[in-house]
């Protein structure tokens, strides 16, 4: 029994490995803020949000499959939340009831109790399907509800009830065994003891095969203990199967929880964006080889979630461009822009809505970030070596049709060396079909590329009004030799800079 809400034909694998650069990605794109908005303090939702956002889907169809399910959820938020809560409650109930023991007879008792509880919860789940299936349009939910109705029919429930009665072994314990090592008994198997009493008599009088019996003396305490041990050995296999059956049902509920949690997280996020009046739209994913990139009003969702005022969005129409060089004023929104590109790409490839008025781009093979880091505290390597070492890791994993976001990389050496390193790396990446976004203050690097008039490159500059104020928007523009650091200097240390030199 499968839910298939995250993928058309497979479970969401919680154990699946995240991309090797997930840590850098999370840190550089400020993703913890996004995850927390989705989780609202729920550990499981948090884990699920993280896993789903970081393990991208790779083709437009599977993205649309999730988008449709998510649209259903946005239409029926309370039903989806109710189902999710029922699932969570079932899992928690079982955790409360279960206890560890070393006696098969106790395992069996405990397992039968758990089975009873589960059967009640399954009935409720089935009722949801009966009552609400018609309110959902997506392929995913349709299959899900149909599965519930088909698998959990009344006849099935009747059969389970019967087992629950029989498993109390009202007629005694009959088991078979074989001769094992040193002729000790092994391979105990429990058999149905339905009419055992009669047939024993029948055998004693009617058949050749003899029956030997033994009575334990009431004073033989060791004997009594051995007998109860024997009973446990006989029940071992059946107790195991019954306990495993409750595990199967538990795993079914856990699977449901996994398949639903991501959508509950999306509901949480959506509600917060609506409250803030921040737009969200379902993106239009294109195939990986289509060099499409256009959006309107794209903003940094993590910034929006953490500030009260409205954040500025950017527009772009950069189809056919493989290289975006971003230069310009300090504190002009360059990093924010870079983050919003990465976030939207990840969210789109998780099947989510994205923080924009409209958004369309091709799916990519992987998103990589190379942002500035704090100085290495262990003093093991110089700053440049540290940056190159991170680039080295990226080079090991990056492939064609990946996206790489550089934020002020290779700045910790002489401008000339840094520019040369940046140029060589960038050219190699672009020629290998990797889409590069490069925020840089390396004038020689940026302007050199500008002069070379690459047809597939676009140059953006953080906007600065002549009076020094920032609009936090990016405009098309040639790289300038200054990033207006002096503005900052004047703002932060006005008295000093006002002094005559």
């Amino acid at each position, binding site marked *: *029994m499968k839910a298939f809400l995250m993928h058309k034909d497979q479970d969401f694998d919680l154990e699946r490995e995240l991309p090797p650069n997930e840590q850098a990605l999370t840190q550089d794109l400020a993703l913890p803020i996004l995850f927390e908005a989705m989780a609202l303090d729920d550990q499981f939702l948090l884990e699920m949000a993280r896993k789903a956002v970081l393990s991208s889907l790779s083709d437009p169809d599977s993205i649309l499959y999730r988008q449709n399910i998510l649209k259903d959820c946005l239409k029926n938020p309370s039903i989806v939340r109710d189902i999710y809560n029922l699932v969570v409650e079932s899992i928690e109930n079982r955790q409360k009831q279960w206890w560890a023991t070393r006696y*098969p007879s106790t395992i069996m008792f405990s*397992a039968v109790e758990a089975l009873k509880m589960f059967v009640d919860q399954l009935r409720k789940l089935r009722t949801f399907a009966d009552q609400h299936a018609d309110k959902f349009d997506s392929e995913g939910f349709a299959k899900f509800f149909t599965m519930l109705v088909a698998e959990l029919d009344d006849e099935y429930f009747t059969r*389970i009830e019967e087992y629950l009665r029989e*498993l109390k072994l009202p007629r*005694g*314990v*009959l*088991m*078979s*065994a*074989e*001769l094992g090592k*040193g*002729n*000790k*008994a092994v391979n105990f*198997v*429990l*058999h*149905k003891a339905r009419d055992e009493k009669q047939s024993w008599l029948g*055998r004693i009088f009617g058949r050749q*095969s*003899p*029956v*030997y*019996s*033994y*009575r*334990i003396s*009431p004073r033989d305490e060791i004997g009594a203990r051995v*007998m109860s*041990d*024997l*009973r*446990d050995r006989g029940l*071992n*296999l059946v*107790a*195991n*199967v019954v306990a*495993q059956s409750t*595990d*199967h*049902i538990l795993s*079914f509920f856990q*699977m449901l929880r996994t398949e639903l949690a991501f959508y509950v997280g999306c509901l949480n996020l959506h509600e917060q964006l609506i409250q803030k009046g921040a737009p969200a739209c379902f993106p239009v994913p294109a195939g990986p080889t289509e060099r499409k990139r256009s959006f309107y009003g794209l903003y940094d969702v993590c910034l929006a979630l953490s500030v009260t005022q409205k954040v500025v969005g950017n527009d772009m129409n950069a189809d056919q461009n493989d290289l975006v060089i971003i230069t310009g004023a300090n504190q002009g929104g360059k990093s924010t822009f870079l983050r919003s590109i990465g976030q939207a790409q990840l969210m789109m490839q998780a099947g989510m809505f994205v923080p924009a008025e409209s958004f369309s781009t091709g799916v990519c093979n992987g998103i990589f970030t190379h942002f500035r880091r704090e100085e290495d505290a262990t003093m093991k390597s110089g700053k440049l*070596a540290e940056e*190159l070492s991170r*680039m*080295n890791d990226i*080079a*090991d994993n990056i*492939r064609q049709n990946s996206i790489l976001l550089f934020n002020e990389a290779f700045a910790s050496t*002489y401008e000339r060396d840094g520019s040369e*390193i940046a140029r*060589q790396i960038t050219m*190699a*990446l672009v020629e*290998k079909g990797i889409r590069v976004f490069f925020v840089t203050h390396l004038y020689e690097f940026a302007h050199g590329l500008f002069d070379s008039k690459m047809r597939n490159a676009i140059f953006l500059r953080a906007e600065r009004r002549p009076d020094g104020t920032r609009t936090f928007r990016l405009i098309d523009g040639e790289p300038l030799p200054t990033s207006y650091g002096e503005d900052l200097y004047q703002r932060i240390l006005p008295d000093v800079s006002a002094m005559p030199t």
Partner: protein
Amino acid sequence: MSFPSILFARPEVFINDQQLGEADFFADLNLDQIIAAVTAGRDEYNLKPFFYFPLNSTDEIEYRHEVMQDLESATLFEQVKSFTQKMRTMREHLVQADALGHKYQEKAWYLDAGEIYCDAVNCFADYLAYEALKSRGFLAFRKYLANYVQSDGFTLLLAETKKIKADLAAAKYCVFLTGDGFKVRKYESESDYSTDVEETFKKFKQGAVKDYRIEFPWWPQMNHIEVKILDFVARLYPETFSNLDSYRANNGNFVDEAISAFDREIQFYIAFLDHMAPLKRAGLKFCYPRVANDSKEVYDYDGYDLALAHKLIGEGSSIVCNDFHLRDGERVIVVTGPNQGGKTTFTRTFAQLHYLAVIGCPVPGKEARLFLFDKLFTHFGREEDVKNQRGKLEDDLFRINGILGQATSNSIIVMNEIFTSTTLQDAMFLSKKVMEKITEFDSLCVWVTFIDELAFFGEQTVSMVSTVVPENPAQRTFKIVRRPAEGRSYAISIAEQFRLTYESLKERIQS
């Protein structure tokens, strides 16, 4: 037909186990550690005497190389291991059989010992028959074993064992627990309850789940209820149990002597190969050295101290390998250079390699040629001993005198920082005297010293130096080389190091 030995081409060369012990140089060379580690967990085979016994002919060494090389086939190695493991299990069963009180129990254990033995011998003979063997040792053993499994004694033992085992396996029975006792009867194909339950709930299954079966403690003895049940079962299957009863009397002492000897002696190889395995996995090399007694050209490439390697690889770190090569008239390696740079280790390696070579083992390194020496002498100074300087110097001289008195031109001498407890001038004088003697003998020698002059002693001496990282003299490379290396690095060359230039990057990135 008899089988000689898997360890000796001519078994008569091996002298009595009892006489053998560690040679004087074992502790200096850490050979005691190596042999302890190699033989660990194999006390029952008493392997150490074999490791204490240097071979004195190239043919005997070759005989072991052949066997060892055959054993480098992973399948043969696994088969031999499986065979010896079964033999060990078989012996445990014989011991257990005699420790039990109940007759049907004791006899069941004895029967199992017989079964395990038959299986061990049969499987191994079957396997060897088709294995591409090259060594004289294995070829002879294969022949012996092939004859043995055809013998009347063995075929009868096998047939009787099989029949009784099969009959016992078929003796299935039922126990019905009543309130105050139990009943026992033959099993009558009742259906298994657990399958039905399993079927009903299978649909919820998402993956593997926990196994709730309890491991019941097991011991060979039986309690009175178990005995009662077994007696009932014996009455249900009387013929089977009477056959079991007479099995031990019919088949006393069934283990063949030659097979038993092989089982012990082959452990020499297994132990060493097992010891090599983790080091090989860590990328270290072993090779079969050419061992000669007619030429003193010796070399080893990528060699290392086996004791140190065992320790470091066990800790998850790595070890630095070193080379040496003495050509033509070169006889003495003089090792100088900074402290803790691996000089002593290098010296040990040189001597360990030679010792391992003469007991017929592979040696650390990718290619080696070594000398079949007559005696090996070591003199390791103990620098911590500052209390009694005069005594120490005397002791040094006394010991060196002893060495020089016994050494021949076919000996190997290893000197590690001797004459440290005197002035440099004295030490230089004494060292030169000793060096004169050694070169006169024409013995092979490795000599660690702080006296650089010794390195330029003459044509027979070769100078090797422990090296440091050029930019950071505090950092050791543990490389011992004939001449020091150099290196340097600049800003943009860091990018080259990371293979992040335009060309390398384009090469690296997958499409």
